[in-house]
């Protein structure tokens, strides 16, 4: 069917494979393109802020309004090109129904892919929706996964509670113990699943090394990059097959949105897309608008996070009431050599141990006036929480000790507030505990 590609409602590069009237599969002409996107402009030669502001953003053609309008519609007009895309299996390249794709999702996805240096991206209604769809796309009946033993609780619940029901299994290993990771691989292992920076001890995972192991054993490497962002390191370039984010954190950055994102090759993201459709975790257009607006300032936000986090970490490290501080850019961090070689930005997460244990840590939180006691992270405002009564409340004190989470452990997501103000706030709070 000949189509007027100028009027394609969707990605004009996403065309039929059957144009040459083939008689067998060798005559099929369609290859994979980056995207889908309404704008195929290469921003790879530009800096992060330029890409963050411009990539994928679609000025309104009808009015000239600058910025992507909110396409708050659930459905789209159907024509021959939509019917053909469904018949031939390239519906991801056309606008049909917002659960499948929407201009706001595409604008955002194009921006995310540009930032990560990936061919394709998908946005989801939560980080867990992104994780579930991605993992389920990459495993088959009876599959086994090798994962970090310091996983985000939601991911652990997926693996621990849902996987056995589906006849799948997971082995948990120390992300720094490469021998143990290799030893855990079984004949039916299909993916390695790790977090770029662990919670709460901020262990920096060596993505390039994990990629070597994955390739050696014919596995896919999935990295949850939530605690770091492409501003810190581009994990696809380091060898990850798929990078997943809870975009509710740094990518959106304003603690006003729940969203998830996946970046990777077009081939793998196309495999994840049907799971997004089946599991239903699509991101609403209005949420996409908020997310796109937040993402535009990612690079300058991360610079501010890093500046305040590093200054505060240095301050805390010399304070007599603090036992230990974890921040990747501190010389004392166990992964500092790796951090120096792979991180362009240390991020905003700082973990430290207060002398006096959990009660002293609780007291500190009550005395702080700037950081808010709340779960989550990556927002412009500093957020502080204690693993023992939040993320790791399900473990006993002994189990937490075995994991390296000592009494008095505090997880601090440093916002973009001025470092001096944060230091003054900690100074007064620490003086009172």
């Amino acid at each position, binding site marked *: 069917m000949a189509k007027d590609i100028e009027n394609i409602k969707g990605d004009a590069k996403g065309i039929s*494979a059957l144009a040459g009237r083939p008689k067998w599969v060798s005559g099929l002409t369609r290859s994979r393109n980056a995207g889908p996107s309404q704008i195929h402009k290469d921003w790879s030669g530009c800096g992060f802020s330029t890409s963050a502001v411009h990539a994928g953003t679609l000025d309104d053609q009808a009015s000239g309004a600058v910025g992507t309008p909110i396409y708050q519609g659930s459905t789209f007009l159907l024509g021959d090109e939509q019917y053909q895309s*469904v018949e*031939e299996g390239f519906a991801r390249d056309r606008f049909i129904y917002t659960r499948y794709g929407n201009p706001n999702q595409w604008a955002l996805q194009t921006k995310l892919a540009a930032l990560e240096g990936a061919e394709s991206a998908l946005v989801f209604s939560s980080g867990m929706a992104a994780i579930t769809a991605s993992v389920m796309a990459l495993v*088959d*009946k*009876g599959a086994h996964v090798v994962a970090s033993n310091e996983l985000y609780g939601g991911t652990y619940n997926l693996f621990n509670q849902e996987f056995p029901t589906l006849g799948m299994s997971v082995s948990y290993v120390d992300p720094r113990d490469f021998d143990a990771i290799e030893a855990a691989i079984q004949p039916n292992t299909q993916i390695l699943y790790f977090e770029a920076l662990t919670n709460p001890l901020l262990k920096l995972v060596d993505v390039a090394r994990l990629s070597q192991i994955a390739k050696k054993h*014919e596995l*896919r490497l999935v990295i949850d990059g939530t605690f770091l962002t492409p501003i810190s390191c581009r994990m696809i370039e380091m060898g990850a097959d798929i990078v997943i984010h809870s975009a509710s954190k740094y990518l959106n950055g304003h603690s006003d949105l729940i969203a998830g994102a996946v970046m990777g090759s077009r081939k793998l993201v196309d495999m994840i897309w049907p799971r997004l459709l089946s599991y239903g975790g699509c991101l609403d257009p209005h949420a996409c608008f908020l997310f796109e607006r937040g993402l535009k300032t990612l690079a300058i936000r991360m610079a501010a996070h890093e500046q305040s986090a590093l200054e505060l970490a240095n301050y805390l490290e010399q304070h007599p009431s603090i036992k230990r501080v974890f921040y990747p850019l501190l010389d004392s961090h166990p992964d500092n050599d790796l951090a120096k070689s792979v991180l362009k930005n240390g991020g905003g997460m700082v973990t430290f141990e207060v002398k006096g244990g959990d009660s002293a840590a609780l007291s500190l939180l009550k005395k702080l006036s700037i950081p808010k006691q709340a779960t989550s992270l990556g927002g412009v405002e500093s957020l502080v929480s204690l693993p023992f009564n939040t993320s790791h409340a399900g473990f006993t004190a002994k189990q937490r000790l075995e994991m390296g989470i000592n009494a008095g452990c505090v997880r601090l997501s440093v916002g973009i507030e001025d470092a001096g103000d944060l230091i003054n706030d900690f100074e007064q709070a620490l003086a009172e505990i």
Partner: protein
Amino acid sequence: MRNGIAVSALSEYVNEVKNDPEQGIAKYGVELNWQSGTRSKVKALPMSVGPYKVSRDFTWEIDEPRQLLGCNHAPNPQEYLLSGVGACILVGFAVGASVMEVQLETLRVTIKGELNLSGFLDVDPNASVPFTEIKYEIEVAGDGTDEQFEMLRQTALKQSPNAMTIMKGADVNGDLKINR
């Protein structure tokens, strides 16, 4: 999707293999464990497509009819062989129809073979051990022309790895491992 085949994804894979032939290498394996008598249990081993593993958590049984000293609890090795050839032809036919934009309504492949068991039993040196002929019939309904269906028949046979393995043969090499 026409005939349930995503020709766009197929096309992308075909062109990926053109650029990177390693992606077209598929490795398979099964493991058979003797149960008792003529009965065995088969487990599909993890396969790989290109440089990536795929979990294959499937098991099935194989047996012989009582007339051939089995319990008739499952299809026998010859039926699995024939079904492997027939399914392979069927896949090629359905894929080819989708590529040629032919909508199928029904598709049935019947495949039959005859063995002279005197060969297996080695009671007649002139009797053949293998099948000497395998006959298939493809019964199809859809919106294709007679010429298109004939082309699909020929192409499905010609491009079928299993049918071509039967027709052209393959080396069978093996080892014996004795556990004491």
